[in-house]
């Protein structure tokens, strides 16, 4: 066998091995989580001793279940996504379609720095910001849901901007030429043709950003998450969140039962993230069918 043939054979076998390796890793993680968390999965894990309907309607507070953490995570993710979506996608759109090359390079550098910022540093930034505000403009300011969401939004904005810019850059040049020949202005072309066509890629970025916001612990533990706060009372109040509950349980558990409840919480977080992923996928599919026509 020649040298080129041998290296070709090795490469082919490496590729055959690597693809199942990813599936194996994900499978092992899932099996481990399900085995550990499944026994503790029950309505009482979520709602404690409170009837589910009373907890869902907010008639009774849940102090021994994960419902407040689920609600806190949901509020946090929704708020962070709401804050990051417009600036993130807008920044990506500006970078790909409107920014002069030198300005685009500057913005990309700033985005790379922001994307590379460890989340604990972002948490520290939020914490220091509150200290600064307390000393200057807002003496009553405190760590809260709003601060956590703002820091998370800052953390995920570069992901959104980068995926939006990449998705738009991948659009064929002929599409732009066709729009220009039809009399679309650059803004109309971007708004009515490029953005909808690039939506599958942008939706991928949104899913990544939402997943990152849902799982991040370092930011929220310094900016507003606590172990026992009940349901989020408002933007300025502290809150519970699933990743923080998992972290707190794994660090402070007293017995095996409590540890198993931690695994149950991890399984819940996974289900919540998967649910969001599925919802994003369905929305994207529905939009694509409506926009591009039914296949």
């Amino acid at each position: 066998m020649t040298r080129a043939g041998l290296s070709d054979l090795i490469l082919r076998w490496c590729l055959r091995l690597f693809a199942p390796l990813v599936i194996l890793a994900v499978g092992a993680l899932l099996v481990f989580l399900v085995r550990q968390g499944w026994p503790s999965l029950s309505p009482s894990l979520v709602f404690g001793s409170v009837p589910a309907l009373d907890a869902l309607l907010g008639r009774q507070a849940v102090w021994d279940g994960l419902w407040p953490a689920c609600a806190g995570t949901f509020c946090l993710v929704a708020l962070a996504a709401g804050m990051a979506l417009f600036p993130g996608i807008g920044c990506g759109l500006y970078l790909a379609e409107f920014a002069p090359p030198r300005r685009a390079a500057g913005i990309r550098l700033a985005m790379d720095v922001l994307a590379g910022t460890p989340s604990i540093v972002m948490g520290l930034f939020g914490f220091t910001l509150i200290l600064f505000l307390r000393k200057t403009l807002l003496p009553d300011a405190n760590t809260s849901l709003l601060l956590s969401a703002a820091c998370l939004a800052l953390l995920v904005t570069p992901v959104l901007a980068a995926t939006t810019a990449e998705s738009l850059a991948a659009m064929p040049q002929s599409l732009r030429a066709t729009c220009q020949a039809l009399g679309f202005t650059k803004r109309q072309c971007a708004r009515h043709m490029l953005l909808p066509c690039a939506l599958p890629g942008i939706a991928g970025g949104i899913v990544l950003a939402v997943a990152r916001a849902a799982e991040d612990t370092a930011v929220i533990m310094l900016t507003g998450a606590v172990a026992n706060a009940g349901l989020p009372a408002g933007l300025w109040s502290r809150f519970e969140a699933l990743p923080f509950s998992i972290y707190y349980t794994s660090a402070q558990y007293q017995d095996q039962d409590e540890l198993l409840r931690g695994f149950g919480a991890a399984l819940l977080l996974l289900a919540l993230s998967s649910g969001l992923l599925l919802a994003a996928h369905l929305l994207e599919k529905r939009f694509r069918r409506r926009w591009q026509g039914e296949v």
Partner: protein
Amino acid sequence: MNHATNHVMNQATNPARRQSICVEHLEVAFGGRRVLENVDFDARATGLSVIVGRSGSGKTTLLRALNRLNETLPGCRTRGRVRLDLGRGLEDVYPQSLGARVRPLSELRRLVGMVFQTPSVLPVSVAQNIAVPLKVVRGVPGSEIGDRVRQALEAVGLWQETADRLRLPAASLSGGQQQRLCLARALALEPAVLLLDEPTASLDVHSARAIEDLLTGLAERYPLVVVSHNPRQAAKLAQSLAVMAKGRMQARFERDIPDAGEIGRLLGEA
């Protein structure tokens, strides 16, 4: 009434004689490389003008100079004068002096419809291909869109073939149908001039014939400028013919259009 006045009145009242496109001393260069040199060209208010030439002769650049689409390419520099009749008599397309006002690019391109060599359908459904430009560029209200889509598809003989496929992706149509859809989309925007860049080059014989028949019909209502490298097609369609070579206008025929063999010979010489 002297002869000159007579000529002007004749031009003003008879659309077949009125000029709709007038190009003088046009020069186009990309990054220092001159593609068009001192080109003169004109076309009447109705009728089909064909520009023929070999690859690289500058015919597409001339076509794209009419709706200023060359400017979307990097390093484009245009000199000379291009005037089009877009409903208010001949008007300059490029500013002739510093600060001179011309129509905004988007309006110009909407009024100068263009069909490309390969069908350039938008990646949306058949109906949306016409509806989106109508809504965005012309601002047609939603209640009128359905009728306008139907009228445009009927104008190119595509309604019967696509009436039950309006919600399907436009890319699922055949090549010939896609090209007719592009033509319908251009017509829906109510252009004053239609430009077609080798519209049958990527089609089979039957589809090409359907497009040619369509163009012959449309030439009675619009000034059409068609770029072609096919002598047979040029001889069949042309009511006036321009032959280009190496970025220059080689020959013009306003009447007595040569046959396919003669055009082929001209192209060979060019």
